[in-house]
């Protein structure tokens, strides 16, 4: 699969990564080269073969959804620690840009 600049721009948007216009060509080439390499898997006959998602035979288990009240001090400590790591903060909230941009 050879990726075009237009497709790379679309993928970048899906992946939420900003790629400058003048770098699209570079990534189109690099990603196409890796895709070309991995396409050697088409040589392998996988008819009737099950896909393998994990090697330890994990099954999903569910637990009761019970509330656990943490110690007041501990809770305050965690909140403080988490808030202190927010890039933009307003009181005890993370501040983010509006979902709709001017263009929308």
């Amino acid at each position, binding site marked *: 699969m050879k*990726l075009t600049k237009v497709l*790379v721009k679309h*993928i*970048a*948007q*899906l*992946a*939420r*990564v*900003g*790629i*400058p216009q003048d770098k699209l060509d570079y*990534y189109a080439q*690099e*990603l196409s*080269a*890796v*895709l070309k*390499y*991995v*396409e*050697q*898997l*088409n040589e*392998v006959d*996988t008819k009737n*073969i*099950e*896909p*393998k*998602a*994990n*090697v*330890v035979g*994990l099954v999903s*288990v569910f637990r009761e959804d019970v509330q656990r009240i943490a110690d007041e001090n501990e809770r305050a400590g*965690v909140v403080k*620690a*988490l808030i202190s*790591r*927010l*890039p*933009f903060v307003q009181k005890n909230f*993370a501040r*983010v*840009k*509006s*979902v*709709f*941009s*001017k*263009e*929308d």
Partner: protein
Amino acid sequence: MPDTLTIKDIKNNVEKGDATYSELASFYLARIKDKDRDINSFLYLNESALDRAKEADAELGNPGFGELLGIPYAVKDNMLVKDMPCTAGSKILENYIAVYNATVIEKLNKAGAVVLGKTNMDEFAMGSSTENSAFAPTKNPHDTSRVPGGSSGGSAAAVAAGFVPFALGSDTGGSIRQPAAFCGVVGFKPTYGAVSRYGLMAMASSLDQIGPITNTVQDAREVFDVISGRDEMDSTSIQLEEYARDKDPKDLKIGIPKEYFAEGLDPEVKKKVLDAIDVYKKMGAQIKEISIKHAPYSLAVYYIIMPSEASSNLARYDGVKYGLRIEDKDTDGLMDMYLKVRGQGFGQEVLRRIMLGTYTLSAGYYDAYYLKAQKVRNLIEEDFDRAFEKVDVIISPTTPTPAFKFGEKTQDPLQMYLSDIYTVSANLAGLPCISVPVGTVEKDGAKLPVGMQIFAPRKRDHFLLDVAEWYEKEVNQE
């Protein structure tokens, strides 16, 4: 003091009263400050290690003191140590301070070990040389014009340079074993799930595993015994059962997979590994040629599964909860903020893999790439299962060449990826696998270490360590 001390050496020295833990901690900290300028293995040095070592001196002799009391160690910078920076080698987390301890750190703390610092790595563990670190690459202590390997290159170089007796690394496609081989130390990737990954920054969740990098196999075992086990904070973690040590080298059947000794392997590396296999033969082991038929496809499978899982795992670095802060006056809306923070915060290799994974998981391409890769993954696992019906362990080179020079492979990502060609299959099949140094080869006047890789069936980690130790003991006697 000799250049490198094993955990056992340290224990002996302290027991005999020749040294205290605080003296050791000061010695290592001073050595790192003096010599790491040339190697650059550490991103962060823990000055409070000395206080912790003093506590260890006081605890010595108390009943029930920890198995690794007072032993200094280093941690790859993608594992959380509370109140220390944790960058994963990335600009997007440059100022991030960890909120809690990873389970491995909790366990090592409890055993009495002392964190000396955090080690350099390829950004988010994506790379094979540390050249993808957003800060600066680490140098190989055996030849500073060469890479230490990666992505746990800082951890491997720190052990090889004698800055710490052991370090933790993480291995998604060879990131413990490949740098261990390049730096001439032992690197152990346990069975998938044998060590809890709670507090490890996830790259590819179906492949990631934490393990020790040490000077000897015996040290690897000591660390593994402390960090392994089921953890309720990691639902993929498992408890390994004790096994009866009923085998000795005379009963051992070793499989030599022809696919791992084929074209592309440096002839001198090949010779060193074959010489090491001869050591087992002399001890009475049986050597059989085997085939892992789908092994040549491992790297292709890996370069679909890993980026796919990474693209999903790295979605959490969104500029909202923590990490890089970009002034937002001219940012137009939430989407624009994501694009800016992630586009500027991630380096080239990470961007490449996120986009690759996003593409292979996207509608219309999922079956052709991700699903196909999972099917071939199944075939690779079956090949190993079939091989282990005939042999107890499998031996191959860890890497096709010894450490390469800086810049040699940075222009062509595929060339860089190929240095993991022998290591990725153990992750795909979830097998325990250890790289053990087997001597050096000379390149351009430098003596460069070579590693041999031993694979065992899943959950046979203790047996694998026994087998590796047989070699180590035999060679040390010679």
